[in-house]
């Protein structure tokens, strides 16, 4: 499947973002929504959560591989669908709306973006005359692995996961907790990694002989006994978490010093920016369901939605969504066009949309009354996803701190 890129505005910085949905994006949305309506209704999500599986493999096959959404961020010549972050954002809106248990954000966005950066680093190195021949050869070898993995991820055949804690925020360096020896054997632990249990390939940041590198670990490799994944019980029933333990586990390097850090930073920035779209879709579901329910539910001889106290609450939520949608679109567009304002747009989208999603889910529970407190009703799946997403890829507070630096509103000193 190929997607034409939307008409792209000039890359000028703040104020020029293209914030509407293109026709192709709406078509993509309709296709994804139809698939999810059919394959991922709330009952299925709940049953999945109770079944304790890592993710919905059949749904992932249909969505990622058959529909081709796994490769949206990847250019066609690298085996992808040649779309952009704008389209990936639309997919995430729908996945948020359905709280789907698939590794789209982790594999098709974050890990894919990390690998794209690794491949990009090679392109840069080729034109960089200053690099030593040996280093250039190593970079080329790294990139070859990255290209191979990228194609596998883009096709939806394999799931890749960047092995960092889900709470990692872009723009604030997180500690590297794994060591790599000269033969690229990895030792160490990383806790709280989302979808690690779903991964065929883990991209592990590790301290190597000459600095931080990014290493690919095959979870089904013969030496897999040297790799342990301990699941932890997640608050969000639709996204698994695990601790990764490596003990001299063999790996292949996909990026060396400099390149690895840039790849991780870029991956987290893209992840955080597009997570806002997932949060937007989630919040929209909460409002739509709440409006529907309060129109139907009668107390005191009238629909409870006819009480102004509730009407105003839902109207206020709608207002929040207006700005959340614009902020999420701005982040997706900035990422798609490579705008240098992207870090600001991402921080704004995260700081704002994360809170809107939590508020929407909380209001959804509250305005449903007792039924909203039950396991049977899907509202809790959204509440748990929204609350976890608030922490994922940086809390709103963290994003505000990043923003303070970016826009020069420093914290008081002393």
């Amino acid at each position: 499947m190929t997607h034409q890129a939307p008409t792209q505005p000039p890359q000028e910085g703040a104020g020029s973002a293209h914030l509407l949905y293109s026709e192709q994006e709406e078509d993509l949305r309709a296709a994804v929504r139809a698939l999810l309506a059919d394959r991922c209704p709330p009952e299925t999500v709940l049953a999945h959560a109770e079944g304790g599986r890592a993710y919905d493999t059949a749904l992932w096959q249909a969505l990622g591989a058959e529909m081709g959404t796994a490769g949206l961020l990847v250019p066609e010549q690298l085996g992808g669908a040649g779309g952009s972050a704008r389209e990936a954002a639309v997919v995430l809106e729908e996945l948020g709306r359905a709280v789907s248990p698939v590794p789209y954000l982790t594999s098709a966005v974050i890990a894919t973006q990390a690998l794209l950066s690794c491949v990009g680093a090679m392109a840069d190195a080729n034109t960089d005359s200053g690099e030593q021949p040996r280093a250039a050869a190593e970079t080329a070898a790294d990139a070859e692995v990255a290209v191979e993995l990228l194609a596998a991820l883009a096709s939806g055949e394999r799931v890749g996961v960047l092995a960092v804690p889900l709470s990692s925020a872009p723009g604030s360096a997180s500690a590297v907790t794994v060591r790599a020896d000269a033969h690229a054997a990895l030792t160490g632990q990383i806790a709280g990694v989302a979808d690690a249990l779903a991964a065929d390939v883990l991209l592990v940041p590790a301290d190597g002989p000459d600095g931080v590198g990014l290493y690919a670990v095959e979870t089904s490799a013969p030496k897999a006994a040297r790799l342990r994944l301990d699941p932890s019980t997640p608050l969000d029933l639709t996204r698994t978490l695990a601790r990764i333990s490596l003990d001299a586990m063999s790996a292949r390097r996909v990026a060396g010093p400099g390149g690895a850090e840039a790849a991780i930073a870029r991956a987290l920035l893209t992840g955080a920016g597009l997570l806002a779209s997932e949060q937007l879709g989630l919040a929209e579901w909460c409002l739509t369901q709440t409006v529907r329910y309060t129109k139907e539910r009668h107390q005191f001889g009238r629909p409870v939605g006819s009480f102004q106290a509730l009407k105003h609450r839902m109207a206020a939520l709608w207002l929040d969504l207006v700005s959340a949608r614009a902020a999420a679109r701005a982040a997706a567009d900035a990422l798609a066009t490579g705008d240098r304002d992207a870090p600001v747009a991402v921080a704004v989208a995260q700081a704002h949309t994360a809170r809107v999603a939590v508020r929407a889910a909380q209001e959804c529970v509250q305005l449903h009354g007792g039924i909203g407190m039950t396991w049977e009703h899907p509202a809790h799946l959204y509440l748990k996803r929204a609350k976890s997403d608030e922490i994922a890829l940086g809390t709103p507070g963290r994003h505000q701190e990043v923003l303070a630096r970016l826009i020069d509103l420093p914290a008081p000193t002393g």
Partner: protein
Amino acid sequence: MSAKNTAVEAAEPSPGPIAAAEPSGSPADGAEPPPGPIDAAELRRRVAQLLAAYDPATTARADFLRAQFDAGLAWVHYPAGLGGLGAPRALQGVVTAELDAAGAPDNDPRRIGIGLGMAAPTILRYGTKDQQRRLLRPLWTGDEVWCQLFSEPGAGSDLAALATRAVYVPAAHPSEGHSADDAERAGGFGATARERGEPGEHGEPGEEAPRSGEWVIDGQKVWTSSAHVARWGILIARTDPDLPKHRGISYFICDMTDPGVEVRPLRQITGEAEFNEVFLTGVRIPDSHRLGAPGEGWRVAQTTLMNERVAIGGGSVPREHGMIGVAARTWRERPDLRTHDLHQRLLRLWVEAEAARYAGERLGQQLAIGQPGPEGSAMKLAFARLHQEVSGLEVELLGDEGLTYDDWTMRRPELVDFTGREAGYRYLRAKGNSIEGGTSEVLLNIIAERVLGLPPEPRTDKDAAWKDLPR
């Protein structure tokens, strides 16, 4: 607070002065009447006596609690003979402090919140002497757990719309009263029951003819917390569908061991099933298990609900009691988690919690001098909001740990603990605080209409016969 209760209706007339929940002052017979006024010194003397006779170190917990009840030291403001001494309510703190210092067991109020906070004051006000004698002691000691059979699928905030039916069946031989079977099921408060009347409102307890016959109950209740461990349930049911909805309701004490009572767990967002669906099919309740006059159930229920709010509001608790204390502890213990943003937000919530604590203390002082204010409803609202905000902040503060949950296993807990377990559980459980016991929206309506005197919403459902209402 006691665990939870059910809806309160916004637009109904005030259920009467809060002071009506105070003791009637007429000691039940069989009790040792206090020799003089009961003050703090007298209470300390009696606690010392109790401790001398029943050393907490060597006395079984249940025995100690029963002895405490019999000594009138359970709830000192209740009448003598019913666990109290007719003393001012505020003096209970003296007893509790003395007993705590001596290492005496408590009656685990979290496990029996509905009994203590809701059933007991209602039984005290509307119960017959036999009902009071039979029920209050095991209620207080925790030997018998209570649940509240109020909410229904179609009647939550609009509780008065309830559809569970109660149909009266006269006894075959009315003059003989109950069969021995009934008397046994009634646990000894059946055959000789007499209406007590309503102290304070209708003068002295009136005499009523011996009650006979029984009620047959059919319907469904929902969100019934603790039904799976309860011995008794306070139940409201429709006894006259031809009357407007508030007028055809009666109030009963339902024996949860009746074969017609079926309790099915209802799992909630925390993973546990604290509440239940309760199906009532041909449940037979002797007329002696009725509380208040037939058709007066709505008024009796208002006492139940009002008392819960008093119980929430009238407390004096130490600084950092409850959820804010939990979050403050996490903050102090985990410097690694601190950020400027969280710091400011925590401080703001701390201030709000402290102000709410003063408000609770002030309400308690008002109650103690017999000037109850309407602040009771405000306390529940503040409590719900603070619980939710503070627990939400704590999850965020914990970051990586906030992304995890301790255990989703389906369980049927015996007690409700808002501040127990881990942050994720506290966050999810707190969501119920603004729904259980009357939603925050409904409580705000009550404040707007009853406290501020704002005009009510126009209503079409109040005066029509219940059977003619659209459903």
